[in-house]
């Protein structure tokens, strides 16, 4: 039974599509971002209500039950996840979306006689499966369930080529025969291709890959819309595919990388050529009291927060330290690298959570010339984003990434957990420079000790 005339369904879908466009536009500006997201959610609600009212549906109790299960699992996780773990959660949600698109295509194969529709099914299956498996691997990397370093083995390009050729062959066979068994084979090949695509990607590049896979899922959804003849899926999927592509390029540009370089760098080899041999060279280790004196009698301090700060949940202590120093008349700023944390904009979110005033957060282009005038640069749990290897060592995986010019400051203090290299796995020459001192320990504990010592000055 249908309650709605098809014309009304089309109008509701149009309203939902407009909501999605307004949502993406709203999300592009800080003032309208939150409203934009809510408009997007409204659009989704309109679309889901419309499909229930208009399509001739069986099994409605089962469908409602499945929706309840999906929402009951996802909403609490999304609400409770620590902000530091948010990137991997986004990867996970993206992956299940791709998986859903692939399953929809698989089920539609039985109804598809037209070769063009079958082509769209093959595309959805393959891209959806790549997105599902690839997102699974990025999740495992970010959650550190597996190594964050690039995983390469000899013959990887050969295996990848073989999998892709087999996928093309299976795809052609599915289009010609419409066989469900071959479609399942294609699905499995897609999963393999997704894993092989992401394994060789190094830790620091993983967020860009999430964005790329996000665009992939969008394209898979658009193709499934072509399969079902559903305009809303076509429009929404294409919007995400197109904006996701632009976003991926913008993210890669912020890190001075090219998307092709990230995906295929490890295939060519040499991208992991960072100096992995941790040297035995001496470093200047320092005490919390020494650091407090350095900071307390400076005129200008620039704090460089990194992922280590976020992991240690030290952003609140960092904010307190900044306040204590400002109370002594010291000029304090936070220098935010575009990819500080694990994703562009991640660190802004974390510091905003700790109530650091917006005016103290300086973007890289703005703060870099100011390091020359800084007495102390306090690097808290950051490494790759201040590593001069990005400028000097052309074999290094981060070569070409713009960095914060911490070395220009008169004194550099690193709060570090250990001498272990950063997320990208490269050693930092700056640690051995004469103006550098290190305070070892958990970022939050170290900050608390320094804060205590500053207060007693």
């Amino acid at each position: 039974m249908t309650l709605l005339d098809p014309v009304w369904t089309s109008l509701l879908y149009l309203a939902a599509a407009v909501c999605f466009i307004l949502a993406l536009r709203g999300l592009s500006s800080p003032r309208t971002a939150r409203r934009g997201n809510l408009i997007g959610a409204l659009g989704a609600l309109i679309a889901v209500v419309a499909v229930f009212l208009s399509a001739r549906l069986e099994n409605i109790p089962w469908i409602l039950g499945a929706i309840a299960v999906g929402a009951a699992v996802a909403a609490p996780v999304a609400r409770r996840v620590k902000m530091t773990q948010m990137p991997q959660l986004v990867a996970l949600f993206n992956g299940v979306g791709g998986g859903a698109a692939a399953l929809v295509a698989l089920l539609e194969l039985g109804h598809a006689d037209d070769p063009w529709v079958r082509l769209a099914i093959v595309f959805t299956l393959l891209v959806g499966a790549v997105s599902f498996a690839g997102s699974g691997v990025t999740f495992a990397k970010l959650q550190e369930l597996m190594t964050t370093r690039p995983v390469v083995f000899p013959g990887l390009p050969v295996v990848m080529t073989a999998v892709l050729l087999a996928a093309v062959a299976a795809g052609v066979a599915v289009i010609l025969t419409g066989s469900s068994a071959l479609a399942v084979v294609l699905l499995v090949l897609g999963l393999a291709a997704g894993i092989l695509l992401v394994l060789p990607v190094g830790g620091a590049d993983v967020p860009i890959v999430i964005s790329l896979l996000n665009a992939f899922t969008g394209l898979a959804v658009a193709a499934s819309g072509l399969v079902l003849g559903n305009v809303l899926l076509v429009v929404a999927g294409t919007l995400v595919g197109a904006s996701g592509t632009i976003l991926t390029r913008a993210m890669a540009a912020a890190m001075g990388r090219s998307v092709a370089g990230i995906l295929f760098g490890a295939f060519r080899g040499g991208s992991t050529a960072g100096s992995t041999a941790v040297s035995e060279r001496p470093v200047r280790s320092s005490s919390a009291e020494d650091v407090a004196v350095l900071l307390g009698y400076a005129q200008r301090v620039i704090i460089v927060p990194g992922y280590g700060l976020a992991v240690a949940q030290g952003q609140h202590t960092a904010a307190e330290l900044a306040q204590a120093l400002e109370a002594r008349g010291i000029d304090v700023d936070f220098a935010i690298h575009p990819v500080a944390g694990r994703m562009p904009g991640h660190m802004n979110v974390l510091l905003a959570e700790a109530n650091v005033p917006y005016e103290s957060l300086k973007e890289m282009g703005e703060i870099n010339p100011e390091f020359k005038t800084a007495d102390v640069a306090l690097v808290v749990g950051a490494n790759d984003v201040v590593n001069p290897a990005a400028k000097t060592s052309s074999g290094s995986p981060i070569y070409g990434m713009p960095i914060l010019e911490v070395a220009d400051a008169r004194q550099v203090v690193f709060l570090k957990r250990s001498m272990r290299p950063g997320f990208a796995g490269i050693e930092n020459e700056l640690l051995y420079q004469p103006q550098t001192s290190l305070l070892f320990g958990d970022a939050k504990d170290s900050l608390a000790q320094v804060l205590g010592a500053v207060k007693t000055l």
Partner: protein
Amino acid sequence: MDGISLLTITVLAVFVGFEVVSKVSSTLHTPLMSGANAIHGIILVGAIIVAGQATDLWLLAVALLAVVLATANLVGGFVVTDRMLHMFHARKEVGGSKAGTKEARGKVEGA
């Protein structure tokens, strides 16, 4: 709908997609990606249609799995994006009180 109309809509949507996000600061890359991620959860509509047409138990089971996954993408995506953006909202309030911080600093400097 016929193929040419769908193709027209697809091509226009590509340009709209390029256009709406062309000028976004790096600060908003993460929430924007997350919001776009939520939007493709609309595959839920496709999953519902397929589940509503399923005739045997096996097909229904696969379709319902698709519904669960798509719902997780849609609901989780919007909720996590809202949480991220809530931080930006909080920041704006702090920005509003920044005059107070400056005053405090001025006092210290004056003293």
